[in-house]
């Protein structure tokens, strides 16, 4: 770490865990919901909403103490916060810094909004969506979800 003060951060540094930075302004709460972080299990969480950012103008930031995101969680995150960067922190140092990249498909996380889709019935399959930029498309019925994507996430 350098001595230069981090003027953007309004919340304390964490010792071990994950910092999700550059979340689109106003989306932090959705990100927490997707990751199933509600504080009920005693996690130490800091959230910055609409903080100034050079890159985004305004951004949200989430810091979770004691938890490192796995790939599935990052995949889901990519749908809602495609510009986010993820910093894994150990002993106050960033040991891994990565931009979120969209997976080609997302399985089991979203439910298809088409009630006539075969994947919503009693078949032994998980939902599966191809990722198209900011939208996703059901691989079974080919319904495209875009605007209401956050609402289709099964948290």
């Amino acid at each position, binding site marked *: 770490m350098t001595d230069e003060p981090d003027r953007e951060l309004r919340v304390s540094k964490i010792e071990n865990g994950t910092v999700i930075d550059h979340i689109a302004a106003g989306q932090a709460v959705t990100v927490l919901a997707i990751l199933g972080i509600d504080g009920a299990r005693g996690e130490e969480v800091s959230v910055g909403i609409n903080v100034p950012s050079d890159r985004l103008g305004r951004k949200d930031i989430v810091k979770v103490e004691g938890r490192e995101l796995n790939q599935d969680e990052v995949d889901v995150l990519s749908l809602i916060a495609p510009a986010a960067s993820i910093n894994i922190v150990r002993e106050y140092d960033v040991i891994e810094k990565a931009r979120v990249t969209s997976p*080609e*498909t997302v399985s089991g996380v979203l439910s298809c909004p*088409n009630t*006539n*889709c*075969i*994947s919503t*019935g*009693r*078949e*032994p*399959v998980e939902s599966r969506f*191809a*990722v*198209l*930029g*900011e*939208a996703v*498309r*059901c*691989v*079974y*019925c*080919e*319904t*495209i979800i*875009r*605007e209401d994507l956050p609402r289709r996430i099964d948290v």
Partner: protein
Amino acid sequence: MNLRADWALERPGRNAGFALAPSRWIPSATGGTEKHVTVEGFNIPGCAGRLMLQDHLISAKQLTRTDIEAILDRAVEYADARGGGHENALLGLLFFEPSTRTKMSFDTAMKRLGGDTVDMGALESSSASKGESLADTVRVVAGYTDAIVLRHPSEGAAKLAAEFADIPVINAGDGAGQHPTQTLLDLFTIRESAGLEDLTVGIMGDLKYGRTVHSLAAALSKFGANQHFISPESLRLPRGVRYDLHEAGAQVREHTELEAVLPELDVLYVTRIQRERFPDEQEYRAIAGEYRIDEAALAKAKPALTLMHPLPRVDEIAAAVDELSHATYFQQAHNGVPVRMALLDTMLGADGGGR
């Protein structure tokens, strides 16, 4: 005439302007390169030389122009000859929805190739009515037969079936999704009557739920046809189909009225607007009446216009039109047998088709 052209996926409430501009937010699904795309199992073939038909036929999108032409050429041969060549082949007909033409023509096609078919019997007495999943039914039947033809009321059913079957699955209609074998016989009919070059096609009726429309539009885009879609606002093409046509670079326009565009058309493809798509009888009658074809409605059509309909027809084409030279829908239905013979021959392989 109402031109609508939001072929990129527009943001709601925002007029996307004229549509054939590059998509603003979606990377090209087909990329213009030889990569295989996104939706696994669909294998949208960019690979020249490999006929996908050894696998499954789920969507018309997966067919290349070369695939289509090869099948149509083979169908021409079958139209003139008896068939045979697949004496040991057994085709499973899984129809979870009523069907007359599609089921009978597959049955006929397989038998003309020398093979045989098995089916589920009446729907009410089938295992589906006992709550068995489609996946289980398909796994069982795949052990009995050499290929499966599936008609099902849910979108995506054929895709799912293909994941559970180790034999070819042919989509014979999945809900409001796709109906690619109908498209093959539609193209066969168009090729015989109007030709597939420099073609201008109007597709009218229920474009939202019409699976024959979704498949036909995808295939016509491979032939560079100009496509006009004529429907009430509430039954326009679904977003997914518009997106695919946009990505394919198709030449497309949407209209709410036939009149202005009719004189340009080489082919008019009419589909049925169903009563159950409307909240009340009165609204249905009013709208369906606007999209009905009679002799007067065809006054401004080209003399050589080919008038098609996937059938069953109710009253969207008046019976008097049957006598006009435009009427091609019965020939279209007859073409189902040779085209499905050609398709089965391709998918069952050259080894005679038995196991």
